[in-house]
């Protein structure tokens, strides 16, 4: 059984600087005034820190249920010609799914609430802040929050012994990209929502992604045409990227997945800024 990714040159070397990557999203994305929007979130959540802590439980639930339950029934899974215990195979998939869910949850309900109910952006946009500052600032926050959860997730993975190789440290910056991709698109989608009823579409989209994106089993389970369909979906990109990094199976295709996710986030960010201008500054 193979992972289904394009076989290519393995580039284990020079991808990682010693000491691991430094996560400084503020420095990466902290363009001009966007950080003011980020700071507002910090102040809001300083009061509601319990909402932040609640997110830490998710990895425990996922990993415990899969590790104690499902893994007993499933044998080793072969990826890239190597055999891995099921828990090691599935953990990075769950990490990707968790990053997606966190991003979607944070960027749909919260953004809709602030946009339509609380009118937070109306007052922001009466200041020198512009729509793209708002979009960037909210994304920065979503990515940081997502990164925090993913960091905890990876620690829990390590504590349970579900980590593939030490390359798992690369999963953290990669998970930030996953968070960026899904946060951007979720925000853009939210800007089109008219009422709370429209959130049914979110679950309609997120659940099949969660279940069918090679999260729980390799892509090769599917017939050929379905593999092609799944390869096009975003969570598949995230799962494959994180799994490849965690298991140390470096192929050039990982860069393709990364590019897909970054493009998705950038597109989402651009659409969000345009929609904000249309909605709040008619």
């Amino acid at each position, binding site marked *: 059984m193979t992972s289904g990714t394009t076989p290519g040159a393995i580039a284990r070397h020079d991808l990682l600087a010693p000491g691991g990557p430094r996560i400084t999203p503020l420095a990466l994305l902290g363009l001009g005034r966007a950080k003011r929007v980020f700071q507002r979130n910090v102040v*809001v959540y300083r009061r509601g820190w319990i909402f932040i802590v609640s997110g830490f439980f998710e990895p425990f639930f996922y990993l415990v249920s899969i590790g104690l339950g499902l893994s007993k029934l499933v044998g080793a899974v072969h990826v890239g010609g190597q055999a891995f215990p099921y828990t090691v195979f599935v953990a990075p998939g769950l990490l990707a799914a968790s990053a997606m869910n966190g991003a979607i949850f944070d960027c749909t309900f919260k953004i809709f609430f602030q946009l339509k109910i609380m009118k937070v952006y109306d007052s922001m946009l009466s200041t020198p802040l512009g729509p793209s500052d708002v979009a960037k600032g909210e994304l920065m926050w979503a990515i940081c929050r997502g990164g925090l959860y993913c960091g905890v997730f990876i620690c829990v993975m390590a504590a349970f012994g579900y980590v593939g190789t030490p390359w798992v440290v690369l999963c953290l910056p990669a998970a930030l990209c996953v968070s960026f991709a899904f946060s951007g698109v979720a925000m853009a989608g939210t800007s089109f929502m008219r009422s709370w009823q429209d959130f049914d579409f979110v679950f309609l989209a997120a659940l099949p992604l969660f279940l069918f994106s090679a999260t729980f089993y390799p892509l090769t389970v599917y017939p050929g045409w379905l593999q092609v369909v799944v390869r096009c979906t975003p969570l598949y990109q995230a799962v494959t990227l994180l799994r490849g990094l965690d298991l140390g199976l470096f192929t050039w295709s990982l860069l393709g997945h990364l590019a897909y996710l970054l493009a998705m986030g950038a597109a989402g960010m651009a659409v969000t800024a345009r929609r904000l201008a249309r909605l709040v500054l008619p």
Partner: protein
Amino acid sequence: MVSARRLFKHFEELVAVDHVDFDIVRGESFGFLGPNGAGKTSTMRMIACMSPKSGGELTVLGMDPETRGPDIRARIGLVPQEDSLDLQLTVLDNLMIYGRYFDLPKKVIGERAASLLEFAQLTERAHDTVEPLSGGMKRRLTIARALISEPDLLILDEPTTGLDPQARHLLWDRLYRLKSRGVTLIITTHYMDEAEQLCDRLVVMDKGKIAASGSPASLIERYSTREVLELRFPPDAGPSRNALAGIAERVELLPDRVLLYTESGDRALAEVGARGITPLTWLVRRSTLEDVFLSLTGRTLID
């Protein structure tokens, strides 16, 4: 400070602002009056760079809102029609965070916030959440928030709508103080007493156009008489227009009231008595901006 020439704004089919001209000079308090849907808020939002114009020319603080939006907004304080306070933050944090949107240093915001809370009489509520505040308190906080950047131009869209008389008078008092400090105010309102109290100059808008402009006193002089005699009759039992002919410059017959616009209400009342007309009650009052407003925009309810 603000100059508009043939300023035009439409939302798809609806023409909101129909080729209006006006100039607002530094230090004055300028009012936009008009019924709902007259185009006041649309005009405000264009001045505040929160809505692009559809046509015409607009200059705010010597800059073009289309290209210099953030620079203009940095020098404007906006008090929108609906309070858009950050309900997830405390009173003080509303000021602190809003100040950060203007890139002001924390220390400066802190100092200003303390004096603005004093100004808005909210010092004791500084660490409370915004939600339980009364309507008047929220309004004062919104004004304080708009002042955190020490704007050259303060735009207030219906600042006292929905407030009780005490809260309105307190707010007027605060606005007077700002005016005396040299802040240019732009106020939209449909309260005539508010416009008379606060505005040096105003325009009356109706259906997107400017129907009249001038100082409150000059508008009253031009569009109304010095006094108004109001006579109340039982429903549909009032006198005919003929019976009142010649008593006043203008007569308005309403279902249970008659309004006589005249130089002297007492003299008109004597003449009414002499003609044998006996109202249920009567009242002589000075003409107000409301009379101007109603004569210009009509009595039909606009929604």
